[in-house]
């Protein structure tokens, strides 16, 4: 079953969280990336995410499988938006259920870090001054 997905439209969190409910899980950690109104000191008007979908889905799935192997968790999911996003919109959601909180936090952090550094998705920012740019960071952005 696919644990990683790309979404062309805004998506609901509650059904994703519901997929992770388990009587064995005492802990649930989640992370969300939201579109900020500024970046590197510049006012951001909006952005677009683009992906190499076939490879992004395969690599995203690999990240989640690695998290399940490395940490004592029950299950995990990640959904990343593609297309045009406005300020404040949800860009990425990660959810992890686990028996204990240590593993839930560690796996959640691992999934968002690896997704940001390895999954072929690119951010195109439009700035308030009319300029626009693809982000190709030297190292994964914070």
């Amino acid at each position, binding site marked *: 079953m696919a644990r990683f997905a790309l979404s062309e439209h805004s998506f609901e969190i509650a059904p994703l969280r519901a997929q992770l409910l388990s009587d064995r899980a005492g802990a649930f950690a989640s992370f969300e*990336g939201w579109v900020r109104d500024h970046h590197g000191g510049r006012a951001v008007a909006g952005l677009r*995410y*683009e*992906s*190499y979908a*076939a*490879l*992004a889905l*395969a*690599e995203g799935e690999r990240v989640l499988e690695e998290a399940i192997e490395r940490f004592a968790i029950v299950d995990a999911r990640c959904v*990343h938006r593609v297309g045009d996003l406005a300020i404040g919109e949800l*860009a*990425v959601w990660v959810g992890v259920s686990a028996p204990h909180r240590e593993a839930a936090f560690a796996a959640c952090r691992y999934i*968002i870090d690896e*997704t*940001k*550094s*390895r*999954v*072929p*998705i*690119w*951010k*195109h920012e439009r700035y308030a001054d009319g300029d626009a740019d*693809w*982000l*190709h*960071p*030297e190292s994964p*952005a914070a």
Partner: protein
Amino acid sequence: MSRLTVLYFASLRDAAGVASESVEADAADLRALYDSLRQRHGFALPVERLRVAVDGAFARWDEAPRAGSEVAFIPPVSGG
């Protein structure tokens, strides 16, 4: 000479003006293929900052271009 398809993403696509193109490759490996396309399109990114994929899976720069394959140049990612 091998005819193959090249995919461009993000700033590479903007610089190339197309998302994909069919090319006749006489390069010894994928690194040399990128360097020749970089020269043609004026890509800013050096090969050291990219990854390369063949037919939807990450590949090595020293692989030879295969006729009929789909080669994607992956600029530094910025999801999340």
